[in-house]
């Protein structure tokens, strides 16, 4: 059997890579993909714990996370379309109205 801590460490690594992508990427669509990566990493931890403790709530949570991620993607991509229409660019450095 695979120890549950292996799954959790893999989840932490994927989450860390998502954070790195979120911070260092400049394309707003890729930043959005990094967010999806972080959500997936958390889902893996949920399923692993659900298996380890023999409880189903973890899988139900993953189901809800996936639903919310789908809704979030629909709204987020609409916002991205709006930004690119107004700014003619997908670079987050160009979206700086709130920057000092």
């Amino acid at each position, binding site marked *: 059997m695979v120890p549950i801590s292996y799954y959790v460490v893999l989840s932490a690594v994927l989450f860390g890579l998502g954070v790195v992508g979120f911070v260092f990427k400049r394309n707003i669509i890729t930043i959005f993909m990094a967010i999806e990566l972080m959500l997936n990493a958390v889902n893996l931890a949920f399923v692993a714990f659900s298996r380890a403790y023999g409880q189903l709530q973890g899988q*139900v949570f993953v189901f809800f996370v996936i639903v919310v991620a789908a809704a979030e993607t629909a709204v987020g991509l609409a916002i991205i379309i709006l930004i690119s229409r107004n700014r003619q660019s997908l670079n987050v450095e160009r979206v700086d109205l709130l920057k000092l």
Partner: protein
Amino acid sequence: MTVELALFFVLAAIAVAGALSLILQRHPIHSALSLIVVMVALAALYLLLGAEFIAAVQIIVYAGAIVVLFVLVIMLLNAGVEERTDLSRMARYVGLPLGILLLFLLAYWVAHAVPPRAAAVGAVPTRKLAMMLFQDFVFPFELTSILILVAILGALVLARKES
């Protein structure tokens, strides 16, 4: 038993390689395809954990719907290669070391906090999951339908052409 462990390491390597590729690729369409690799590897890991329903939903919703939406928007906006701008000095000398420190601390805490117990319980049947979803969690389940409706309306209103 060792077959399972080997399978886990192969799938974990594929997932991490896909995530790295997502970060390192310059073109968003390549990043989206790397994301599919991660999703499919994770779905296989869910199968390994005995969560068949979640694995199927992962493939159908994530790889089948969300990433397709990403690819559609990339093509719609004709997104090109990412232009690279310099990191600010603050980000390079403070942010980068702190980020790496966060990664190591996270891995350290997680590796020490979780008891290395093997997954003892067998696979849960999808039937039990359905019972729980539609009995104990039926109110949140109905709420998500409202959430989806609001999200659809919001996306329509936001992306509509102003005339």
